[in-house]
């Protein structure tokens, strides 16, 4: 730890040499347009990349890379920094050869099982909506105790994009699916794992579930399922089948590997909760956050993200004394359903130790729980759905560290 640098509040001599002497960029001719036909971040931004957590998984093709939330603004995640979770590696599929099949578990569930090319899908009436995606295992390393140093690793399996695609309901209707008999659909990926998950028909009928090809204005990135993925707003990422190749209409859940062996939540009594899917209301302060150092005393903005799988965020409260007293934060607009919401709160740091927390409430009135409350019902051994209030401890040195408060 230790303070890295102190910004100057006064200046020596006549002034700052960066003002008094010509800057290189102010006294030269720059680079031409389309030097990068597809642009890149500044070379000075190299610190902000996706990273693995050492020791989390054994092989990087069945692993996670975390989004650098400590350096992000607003609610949109740049697609180049969208978190990754692959079970059998990622593929850059030839979109002209990709197909989507819709079929029934029984013939009577779907009148005309169909095959769609990408050309077909992109002709159907599209919708564009902004939604968060969070892995069910986000913050999973922290169930029992503090394990990782920064918000990239504690909360970085979280991203938010504008998705464009076709409501799955449109496709089911186009195939003549029996939407009375249907109770579930199975979504299947086209990668090596052919990842499958059961989705409740209610979310499909509501129009929320989307067969998406667009992400933040362009096509999905290969790591996120190019050319087609399912978008299941409010539900954990594993259900958002990537490289989507098939939808089956059925009447009972499928107990697939990733809903029968993983993404099941171990309770204190030794039972596993199965088909846990909703990402309950949660929030985290991203600045200042673990592993950082405040440069100075004085004015700061506490800024973070809040979200709920059950709808819109209604309010966020922030505490600087570890949860004894709280202040209501400002929510940046737009505040959308099942989408990240950015909150901010003014804070004058007096140089004394502090304990920063955020606590979100969603439109159902659900209030994000403290660690003590969550552990009281779920123990400490579930890997999934940890939505407890995060605490960052600010030391006198300005160092911010990850701690837990019950």
């Amino acid at each position: 730890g230790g303070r890295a640098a102190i910004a100057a509040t006064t200046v020596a001599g006549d002034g700052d040499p960066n003002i008094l002497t010509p800057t290189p960029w102010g006294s030269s001719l720059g680079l031409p347009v389309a030097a990068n036909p597809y642009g890149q971040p500044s070379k000075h931004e190299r610190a902000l990349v996706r990273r693995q957590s050492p020791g989390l998984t054994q092989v990087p093709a069945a692993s996670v890379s975390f989004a650098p939330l400590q350096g992000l603004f607003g609610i949109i995640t740049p697609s180049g920094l969208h978190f990754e979770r692959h079970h059998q590696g990622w593929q850059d599929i030839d979109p002209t050869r990709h197909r989507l099949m819709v079929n029934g578990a029984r013939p009577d569930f779907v009148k005309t099982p169909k095959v769609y090319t990408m050309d077909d899908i992109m002709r159907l009436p599209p919708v564009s909506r902004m939604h968060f995606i969070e892995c069910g295992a986000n913050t999973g390393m922290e169930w029992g105790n503090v394990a990782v140093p920064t918000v990239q690793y504690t909360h970085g399996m979280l991203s938010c994009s504008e998705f464009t695609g076709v409501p799955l309901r449109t496709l089911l209707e186009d195939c003549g699916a029996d939407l009375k008999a249907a109770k579930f659909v199975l979504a299947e990926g086209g990668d090596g794992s052919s990842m499958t998950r059961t989705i409740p028909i209610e979310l499909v009928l509501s129009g929320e579930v989307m067969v998406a090809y667009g992400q933040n204005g362009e096509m999905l990135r290969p790591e996120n399922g190019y050319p087609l993925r399912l978008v299941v707003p409010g539900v954990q990422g594993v259900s958002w089948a990537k490289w989507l190749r098939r939808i089956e209409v059925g009447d009972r859940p499928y107990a697939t590997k990733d809903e029968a062996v993983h993404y099941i939540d171990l309770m204190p009594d030794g039972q596993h909760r199965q088909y846990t899917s909703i990402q309950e209301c949660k929030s985290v302060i991203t600045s200042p956050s673990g592993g950082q150092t405040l440069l100075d005393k004085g004015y700061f903005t506490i800024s973070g993200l809040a979200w709920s799988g059950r709808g819109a965020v209604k309010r966020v409260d922030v505490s600087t004394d570890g949860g004894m007293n709280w202040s209501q934060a400002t929510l940046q607009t737009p505040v959308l359903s099942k989408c990240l919401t950015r909150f901010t709160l003014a804070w004058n740091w007096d140089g004394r130790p502090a304990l920063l927390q955020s606590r979100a409430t969603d439109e159902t009135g659900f209030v994000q729980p403290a660690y003590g409350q969550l552990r009281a019902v779920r123990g400490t051994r579930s890997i999934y759905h940890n939505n407890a209030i995060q605490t960052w401890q600010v030391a006198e040195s300005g160092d911010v560290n990850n701690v837990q408060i019950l």
Partner: protein
Amino acid sequence: DGFANVGRPATPAEIKAWDIDVGPDFAGLPKGSGTVSRGMEIWEEKCASCHGTFGESNSVFNPLVGGTTAEDIKTGHVAALKRTDFPARTTFMKVATVSTLYDYIRRAMPWNAPKSLSDDDVYAVLAYLLNLAEIVPDDYTLTDATIRDVQKRMPNRDGMTTAHALWPGPDFPGMAAKPDTANAACMTNCKPKAELASQLPEHARGAHGNIAEQNRLIGPVRGQRTGPDTAA
């Protein structure tokens, strides 16, 4: 229909090629069979390198086998899952439905050559895994008929509960209407003091590299230096 010239009917052969899911009620299970001994051959050739001779390796993934007992096979609950001193959780400790394994091995294994096994190969290698897990004897033949008996011996077959509020769809047995936590938005004097329950151990601070290099060069904060700086 409403969308003229969009999409086309799937052919029976196409549906057969892609509709490979096998459900907990065994719908979709192909006819076929495989013995433990044939399974061992496949295992040693195509699986053991990653999962270990006895499915015990965690070099590329969690162990598949271990942690279950004959008593578990009787009760349908893996007792070790209650023990907080037993951190390992193998596949067989968790999986309640044998269909899950058939389905998954057929679609995804071997990891580096998914969908390369025949249906009979999948029966055989699953028979071998069930034998390693002491669920079936050495001379067992797993078939689309006998797999139903196996289901009755799965050690954790009754280990799942849907008694929770985290499913967004229609009710499951026991499903809760209300979330299991109920915090309140108290604003002042919410508790007498804030006590730390856990802190990052000193030794773990450097385990994620130099955090200074994982934060921006500008802004209200810098990253703490927790490791050597890389050459610029």
